[in-house]
């Protein structure tokens, strides 16, 4: 029976060591950078960040009404009488939204409440026509989960894992979205569009376990990947399908948590980091100047990179939570409790668990194990959404292309061509099979790698000719014939006696310059391996 003092000691030690989680069971190398987990805050200041993430569930219809969910539709065209809160309407819960909530909760290792309740949260705003939002405050859908993620060292060109973190998920609940209001400053009015009013949101609230912007940004990115792989949310922060609000506070190490400020209007994972870093610096400055941090809501101005206070909120909202009288409790079943004959009408947690797709973490490990590629490449493939493309490139029935060269083609060459033309991966015109054809020709030796890249560029620009046609018309076939190459090498060596002399005197690096000249003469079609061997032979032999 430990005394209370002992229990406190154990608790403090546990909390302090939880952050320096040693993931010995992971098989990838950790970074050995010199600036090891650099303290981003001066002095002995420590920061704490908790996030509230609102993720719009991808469903056909809204949470409580039958109107369509669609981004960017004509104003007020997807509004039903319930969404406009006209009298005589009642909410009816959408099964798909509950299933999506349960699926996400399972992926985040939460405890699912078999019985959850809906409440009304009252506040006045033009885009909330009912004057209240239906949410789950007393008994949310799921509680007590955790999310493990890695923070990468972005400073080096090759990503290495800086540290592995785990954040506790306080709760996950279903709630309604409000409409959209456009502020017309000139005419002093607000234009309200209710297309978004009533759309289902999952609110994911985390405990304040993160210490800086980098951790928070990494957590948001990982959550985006998880939601996208589960297909419950498209995680598109710029379109507003996923919104992040950060609660930020600073305190001196060892002391209690400081007053927190909430930051809204963060539009991407990158801005999460910037907003948190700015806000922490601002709070430190205020506290060091012997001021006090106010508990308020601030807006993040991404153009200026600053957080701005909204002065017109004098009091905190009194939300007057009350149970939603029109909605009985939501009951979730398992295989043992499922009522017979009604399997289609109820939500069965075990059924949903079976249908869960592979999560990003599992995908990363599987790619490394199955294909033998490097872990950082696996991270990049999963992070950019290229896994399906990569797998179809490698797994072609019967062909089985080399995975490592496939990663190089996809991550370096394909992305480079997309970037040059400012296209996203979704707009990529080259299918995996087309890229595979080029890869095969390069692997066999018909063309050199640089020619392959040229052809890829041409195909991007709309060239639809057959590959062999392109090669013939441009005479890009790789020259591997020793005789022809031999003659060309002799030619080059005769033209540049000074380089030959330099080689004789001991400067071996002139071989590269000679190679360059050979490639130029053959329009980059000389086989590099054969050429280099012949050149060295001739230089030694001469």
């Amino acid at each position, binding site marked *: 029976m430990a005394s209370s003092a002992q229990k406190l000691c154990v608790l403090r030690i546990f909390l302090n060591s939880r952050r320096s989680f040693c993931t010995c069971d992971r098989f990838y190398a950790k970074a050995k950078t010199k600036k090891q987990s650099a303290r981003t805050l001066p002095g002995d200041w420590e920061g704490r960040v908790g996030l509230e993430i609102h993720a719009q569930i991808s469903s*056909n219809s809204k949470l409580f009404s039958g109107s369509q969910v669609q981004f960017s539709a004509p104003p*007020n065209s997807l*509004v039903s*009488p319930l969404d406009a809160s006209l009298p005589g309407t009642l909410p009816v819960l*959408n099964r798909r939204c509950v299933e999506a909530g349960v699926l996400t909760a399972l992926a985040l290792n939460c405890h699912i409440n078999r019985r959850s309740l809906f409440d009304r949260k009252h506040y006045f705003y033009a885009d909330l026509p009912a004057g209240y939002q239906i949410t789950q405050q007393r008994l949310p859908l799921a509680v007590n989960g955790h999310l493990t993620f890695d923070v990468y060292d972005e400073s080096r060109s090759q990503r290495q894992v800086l540290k592995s973190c785990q954040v506790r998920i306080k709760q996950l609940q279903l709630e309604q979205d409000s409409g959209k209001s456009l502020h017309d400053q000139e005419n002093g*009015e*607000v234009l309200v*569009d209710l297309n978004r009013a009533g759309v289902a949101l999952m609110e994911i609230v985390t405990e304040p376990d993160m210490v800086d912007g980098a951790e928070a940004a990494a957590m948001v990115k990982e959550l985006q990947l998880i939601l996208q792989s589960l297909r419950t949310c498209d995680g598109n922060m710029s379109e507003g399908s996923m919104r992040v609000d950060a609660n930020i506070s600073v305190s001196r190490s060892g002391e209690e948590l400081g007053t927190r400020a909430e930051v809204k209007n963060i539009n991407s994972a990158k801005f999460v980091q910037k907003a948190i870093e700015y806000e922490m610096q601002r709070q430190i400055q205020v506290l060091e100047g012997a001021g006090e941090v106010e508990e308020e809501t601030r807006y993040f101005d991404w153009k200026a990179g600053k957080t701005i206070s909204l002065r017109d909120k004098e009091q905190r909202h009194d939300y*007057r939570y009350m149970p939603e009288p029109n909605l009985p409790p939501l009951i979730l079943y398992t295989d043992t409790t499922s009522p017979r004959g009604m399997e289609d*009408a109820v939500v069965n947690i075990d059924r949903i668990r079976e249908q869960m797709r592979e999560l990003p973490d599992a995908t990363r490990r599987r790619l490394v194990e199955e294909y033998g590629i490097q872990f950082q490449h696996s991270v990049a493939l999963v992070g950019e959404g290229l896994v399906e493309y990569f797998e179809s490139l490698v797994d072609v029935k019967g062909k089985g292309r080399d995975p490592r060269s496939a990663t190089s083609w996809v991550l370096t060459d394909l992305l480079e061509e997309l970037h040059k033309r400012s296209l996203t991966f979704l707009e990529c015109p080259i299918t995996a099979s087309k890229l595979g054809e080029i890869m095969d020709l390069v692997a066999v030796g018909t063309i050199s790698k640089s020619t392959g890249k040229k052809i890829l560029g041409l195909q991007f620009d709309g060239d639809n000719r057959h590959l062999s046609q392109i090669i013939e018309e441009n005479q890009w076939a790789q020259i591997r014939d020793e005789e022809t190459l031999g003659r060309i090498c002799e030619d080059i060596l005769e033209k540049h006696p000074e380089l030959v002399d330099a080689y004789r005197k001991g400067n071996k690096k002139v071989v590269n310059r000679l190679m360059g000249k050979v490639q130029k003469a053959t329009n980059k079609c000389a086989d590099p391996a054969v050429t280099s061997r012949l050149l060295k032979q001739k230089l030694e032999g001469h």
Partner: protein
Amino acid sequence: MNHLRRLFRITQVDRPVLLAITRRLSSKVPSEPTWKEVHESKLPKPTKIDQDTIAHLERLALVDFANKEGIRRLEAAIRFADQMFLVDTTGVEPMDSVLEDRELYLRDDKVTEGNCKDDILRNAGKVVEDYFVAPPGNIPLPKKEEYDS
């Protein structure tokens, strides 16, 4: 109203007369008043409302009641409601709604309504390019001193 039908078949009397008779026979209204005065000592202490709460309530309800009569009425109403504390509720779970024994019906994820923009906008006072028009933001109420003067 099964008993009404049976009676109707038995006696040859009109329906309104039948209703009047049955009401007197099985009325839900007690024959004697059952109102009991509650002694002051049994109730908890009377609640005093402070200025902050009054300002808060005025802002939420948009009702002007910060005068002596208004506050007295509010306190009397609270006193009346204090009688609820006399009921013993140990071991009883608070009720949410009369539907709490039922289960929430889940509907299929199909699009069944919407696309009725004209109907939705019909009651709007002012419409600009198919948007509802509302006054700007949350206008803070002027302080009491400002609008009294």
